[in-house]
């Protein structure tokens, strides 16, 4: 494919909302609800109602092409295995409900490793067994990225956090930089990569200073500055910036492995202590909360329990959207019985913005101009309305990565992203 430079657009971040408050740790909810689905693939439940489970015990196994286990975030008793809860995908999913006994009894597998003696294969195995998935939002099993046979030149840690509002990675770097660097070293060993870079937006000066201080003695790890644009955190964008190469399928084609900050920290705990991925930082932000902040929670926490800890909803906001994920790519969820799953980065409650009178498309072409994958959203929307699927396939609607920029820039507030996603689904189901 011809090398084509991806453009980005500056979007006001409004990160200050959740950055000023400290991270709150809330790791003892009364119940946890572990969703039995990930990336749309159902998981097989391995426990039954009444079972006593220990923290870190495998309770479910996701099948499909890239199987990965799921672990009990707390110790306690399984009280239900099919209670439906709202999930970040915008649908209700079945969950395993565990009643917390507040004992934090750890499973036998959780014990320190002799990290120096581990081989590449052993590290990859640990990463798989600990259920480490991409915490940037994709939930893609991380071990798959390391199993490549292609040579990896560089490990890229994605610290761009280009979505507005979210500050989870920001707070992680600020408070856990040593664990991050430890995790990066394990990733380098797992991929045989000679060097690593931490790609971060150049506007996050505070973090760059922290990183530079801690990386002073690390020869192979450096900081890479990204422009303050959206979608700077898109894998393809970062690889293009760092490696000056592009690829079609996985970044390994360009000799890179890209991991999120949260993933690197999870890997550090997995490799040193066999600690599975059962906790993560979630940003609670938006004008609908009284005290927007980052919260360190167990996977499977019902967000209503967190809500009580962070001061509840702002009562002045009557009509609001509950968004699971970032404001650009997240999904609106109808009810707040939402559970935290492994790659939920943020929960946003913001007052509903809607314009009743919208002009017709005037054809300004801003959507075509801005699209990072060079689609022509307005043409795709019209073609979809005409049900001309041959042409849709030629327009490559299936290349859409749902970044939301076309809808963001549209002066007539047309739901372009939605239309392109529908076109993508229509093409996929027709094949």
């Amino acid at each position, binding site marked *: *494919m*011809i090398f084509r430079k991806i453009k980005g657009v500056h*979007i006001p971040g409004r990160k200050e909302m959740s950055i000023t408050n400290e991270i709150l740790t809330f790791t003892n909810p009364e119940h946890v609800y572990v969703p039995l689905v990930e990336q749309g693939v159902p998981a097989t439940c391995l426990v039954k109602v009444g079972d006593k489970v220990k923290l870190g015990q495998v309770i479910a196994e996701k099948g499909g092409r890239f199987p990965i286990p799921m672990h009990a975030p707390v110790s306690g008793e399984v009280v239900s295995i099919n209670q439906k809860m709202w999930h970040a995908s915008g649908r209700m999913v079945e969950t395993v409900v565990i009643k917390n006994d507040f004992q934090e009894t750890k499973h036998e597998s959780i014990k320190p490793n002799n990290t120096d003696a581990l081989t590449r294969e052993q590290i990859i195995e640990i990463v798989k067994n600990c259920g480490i998935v991409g915490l940037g939002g994709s939930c893609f099993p991380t071990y798959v990225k390391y199993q490549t046979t292609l040579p990896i030149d560089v490990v890229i840690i994605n610290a761009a956090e280009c979505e*507005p509002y979210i500050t989870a990675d920001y707070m992680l770097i600020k408070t856990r930089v040593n664990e991050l660097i430890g995790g990066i070293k394990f990733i380098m060993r797992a991929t045989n990569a000679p060097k690593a870079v931490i790609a971060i937006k150049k506007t996050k000066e505070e973090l760059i200073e922290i990183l530079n201080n801690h990386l002073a003695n690390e020869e192979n790890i450096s900081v890479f500055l990204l422009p303050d644009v959206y979608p700077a955190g898109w894998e393809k964008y970062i690889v293009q910036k760092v490696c000056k190469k592009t690829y079609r399928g996985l970044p390994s084609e360009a000799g890179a492995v890209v991991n999120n900050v949260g993933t690197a920290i999870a890997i550090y705990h997995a490799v040193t202590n066999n600690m599975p991925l059962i906790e993560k930082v979630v940003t609670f932000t938006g004008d609908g909360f009284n005290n927007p902040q980052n919260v360190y929670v167990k996977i499977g926490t*019902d967000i*209503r329990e967190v*809500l*009580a800890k962070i001061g509840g*909803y702002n009562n002045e906001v009557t009509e*609001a*959207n*509950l*968004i699971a994920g970032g*404001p*650009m*790519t*997240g*999904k*609106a969820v*109808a*009810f707040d*019985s939402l559970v935290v799953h492994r790659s939920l980065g943020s929960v946003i*409650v*913001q007052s509903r*913005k809607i*314009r009743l*009178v*919208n*002009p*017709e*498309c*005037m*054809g*300004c*072409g801003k*959507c*075509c*101009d801005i699209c990072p*994958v*060079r*689609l*022509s959203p*307005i*043409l795709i929307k019209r073609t979809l309305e005409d049900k001309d699927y041959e*042409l849709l396939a*030629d*327009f*490559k609607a299936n290349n859409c990565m*749902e970044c*939301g*920029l076309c*809808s*963001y820039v*549209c*002066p*007539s*507030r047309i*739901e372009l*992203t*939605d239309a392109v996603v529908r076109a993508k689904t229509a093409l996929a189901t027709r094949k």
Partner: protein
Amino acid sequence: MTEQRRFSLDKAPFIRRADNLKPLSVGSTSVIMRDFIISLVPLIIFAWVKNGLLPYLNDNPALRPSFLEMLYPLLFILIGGFFSYALEALYYSLFYKLRGDELLTKLSTSYAVIPGLLLGMILPHNTPIWTLFIGCLFATVIAKLLFGGFGHNIFNPALIGYLFVIVAYLGVIQDRGGFLNLVEVDGVTSATPLGHFASNPGASIDELIAPYGSIWNLFVGLNPGSGAETSALLCILAFAYLTVRKVIDWRIPVVYIGTFFVLVYIIGAFNGYALDLRYALFHLFTGGLFFGAVFMATEPVTGPKTPNGRILYAISLGVLTVLFRFVGAFPEGVASAIITMNLFAILLDRICAKLRVSDNRTRIIVTYAVFALFMVLISVYSISKSVFKNNDKAAIAEIAEVTVYDNN
């Protein structure tokens, strides 16, 4: 556990540029249209000063228009805007039964004044009001509303109105003084620069410029011509404003005028002006080229939406303008070129949207090459025609000389 709270379901993304309602934001369609109208204001004032105020202030009382005649060029444009607004209101209240607030909302998202306003600016200011009305009827009702209103029209409404009026009522306009204002009627300038050119295609550049003083005058716009479109300078200023405010795509005017300039320079070179840019500049600053390129060719509804499509569109416009100007029957070429290319906008979009995402290098190169070949062929044709004219002239002159000699 507390009760569930219900939330609204909307589509991602949850932040939109269009939601930013600050006056300086560039996000929403209404702001874009507001900026568009703002950019027209200096040109409207210029049209009035040139055709109304300056003749009124001249020293010769015999050539001085009456007070109402002085205001006429300004009123003419405003009335054009009023006509198209009123016609659209009438249309929606008659056929869609919209009343009151509903009607006002519809009109506010349909930007009803713009076609008439533009039509008033590109018609000669001597056009009678009833002709303007018929032009507005064509522009608004036939070219815009019958296609489905704002966003659905295929042809630029103002240009359809313009072409209709020029084709059907040019005689009427000529009778009332044509393109000239009262001062110009009496002066050495007897025609618009392009009219002058059309009647003497073989004339030397000095002869072409002589009636208008200098290239600078043509650039500023102090030459006879349609209402507001003579000033290239003001069009460039409007272009800068519209580009900064992200209303128009800067690539269209730049590529359009660039292509046109290159072709006219080649024609000039073949006619013996290889080192004299005045020939190319004469064509650049006359007629409605700058106005058309900045305000008409960039009209987003009727043009292509894809960025590469826009480049091809602009190149085609340049090539066709040259073709129509040097080979066609009318001295202008901009309006016909834009209307012709409006027809191709959908085709260009379709091809270009595929090319943008295509991985097939050969296909991309072949498509662009075919397009380039097509454009080169048309250009070669128009260049050969315009050079022939000159040689023809020279041949005629030679024959004439021989005859004169013989007679002696």
